[in-house]
């Protein structure tokens, strides 16, 4: 299978070029800081309770406070993974065209779409492994430091993987059309737009402004990454936390529907197919 060979090459390149090690090293720093910060919050919480003579009359219930900490961790992981996905895949095709490394591959007996499929698979594998490790670290921290396990965490993980996959699909498409530099700019702007659009929708919901909500919906049709993050955040928070914290960048109380999830998956497939079609016809 040529696709698997290309996928393997993609993974091998990430390892050989030390991308993987750099990301893992920095992520380890993040996890350490996160553990430290979580511990401080838990200690504070307990000290506060002790002062009150063990009478639990908190500003927010413990579950909600711990959930906020988990959300903070997951939001950071989600954001970083998105950025790294874009950076890693920004030149997936374009940089190889620019360097000329693709010329001796395309002329081999394989179809061009297999190259796209293989690279996509390679990056997707990295996303799944990285996301699992990082979400696992956040949940493990919460469990061991605060004895709190967020609900539906596997759904959340799946949706967060979907967030990065959406960005990966867009980046691959851009990489078959634009130069590496232009692609970086374009995909980043789209990513930024999705984040802002999500925020506008939140605020619109909060102040009951239909136009703002529609802007948000339009942006999540164009780039559904932020809406999938919102669904993920909704699922991994206990109901009490959602209703107490209200709309905020980390979550929502109007979760996107199942249709939105199907749309996002279809969106990824469609974008990949388009990038295959573009690459198929492209002069190298």
């Amino acid at each position: 299978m040529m696709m698997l060979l290309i996928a393997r090459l993609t993974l091998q390149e990430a390892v050989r070029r030390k991308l993987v090690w750099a990301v893992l090293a920095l992520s380890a720093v993040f996890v350490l800081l996160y553990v430290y910060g979580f511990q401080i919050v838990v200690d504070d919480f307990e000290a506060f309770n002790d002062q009150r003579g063990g009478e639990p009359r908190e500003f927010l219930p413990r579950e909600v406070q711990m959930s906020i900490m988990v959300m903070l961790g997951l939001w950071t992981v989600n954001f970083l993974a998105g950025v790294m996905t874009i950076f890693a895949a920004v030149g997936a095709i374009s940089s190889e065209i620019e360097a000329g490394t693709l010329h001796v591959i395309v002329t081999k007996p394989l179809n061009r779409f297999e190259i796209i499929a293989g690279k996509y698979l390679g990056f997707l594998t990295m996303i799944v492994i990285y996301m699992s490790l990082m979400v696992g670290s956040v949940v493990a921290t919460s469990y061991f430091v605060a004895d709190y396990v967020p609900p539906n965490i596997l759904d959340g993980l799946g949706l967060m993987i979907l967030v990065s996959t959406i960005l990966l699909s867009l980046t691959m498409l851009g990489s078959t059309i634009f130069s590496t530099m232009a692609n970086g700019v374009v995909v980043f702007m789209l990513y930024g737009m999705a984040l802002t659009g999500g925020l506008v929708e939140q605020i619109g919901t909060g102040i009951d402004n239909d136009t703002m909500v529609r802007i948000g919906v339009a942006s999540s049709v164009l780039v559904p990454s932020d809406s999938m993050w919102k669904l993920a955040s909704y699922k991994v928070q206990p109901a009490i936390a959602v209703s107490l914290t209200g709309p905020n960048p980390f979550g929502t109380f109007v979760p996107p529907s199942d249709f939105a999830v199907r749309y996002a998956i279809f969106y990824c497939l469609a974008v990949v197919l388009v990038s295959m079609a573009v690459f198929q016809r492209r002069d190298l």
Partner: protein
Amino acid sequence: MSSTTEAPVPQPTPRAEAEQPAIEARGLQKAFGDLVAVDDLTITVGQGEVYGFLGPNGAGKSTTVKILTGLIRPTAGEARLLGRKLGDRRTKREIGYLPELFRFHDWLTANEFLDVHGRLAGMTRSQRQQRIPEALQLVGLTGRGDDRLRTFSKGMQQRAGLAQALLHNPKLIFLDEPTSALDPIGRRIVRDVIRELSAAGTTIFLNSHLLSEVELVSDRVAILNRGVVVAEGRLDELRPQGFAVSLRLDGWSDERRDVVMRLATIDSLEQLADDLAALTVTVPDEATIAELVAGLVGVGARVYEVTPRKETLEDLFVNLVDQADGMDLKVSTQGQADTP
């Protein structure tokens, strides 16, 4: 001038594949917007030939190879490789390619690089295990298989690229400026490899702007200028007919002139002193040179110097390119520059 196939284009005969030409291109054209990189290119390369594709920089040589290898699409015309249409997967298995701007995944070792490309070419594990050391040896990289390509010099990378191109024993190999990064020894290695492949029956399409490279190994050449083939044929056909010879004698006389005129044509004559004449003549073949000298000595002349001046393909090349450019200039003064 043009010995290109003018008369009925050879029809593809329904004979065995081995009888099919290795490359058959008809009216290929590639335009990038207004710029026509290759225009109406019609060539036929027989199997087992070493075909030199010559032209100055920017003539459209690489574009032609890219069309034939399927990297870019022609805007007009069609081509067949080994009897099949461009892009056929079976054909891709049987062609090798070394691009002009050879850049490879330099984080791989030479062995890994060849292994990947062997797999891409559809070779089995045992084929690869046997063939990779052979290919490395052929291009003079024995013992460097475990080094990353990044640590290689440009010339070594180009030779690794050559190993990649011939690894799977293709029937047809495209080499685009294969010696651009090589030192004289490297060039010699490439030349030897081409000869070896040719001896084994491989067809080689050799792009180069270096006539000396092409001249030494090619059976036939085409000369491309500004996207148009200005000459095509076997080397001995293209090379100017006859040999120019310059002579120095102890003087000149009618008698001596008769001797010379009988055997050759006089291109120039100069009486340098009473007892010294220099002349340039053209003789039909090398054997006549000896006859000429004997004739002159026979009528009492003393011959001080006989220098055969072999006209090279280089002269032809420069002439043709100049001519074509001249034509183009004339056309462009009349209006839109348009290659005929």
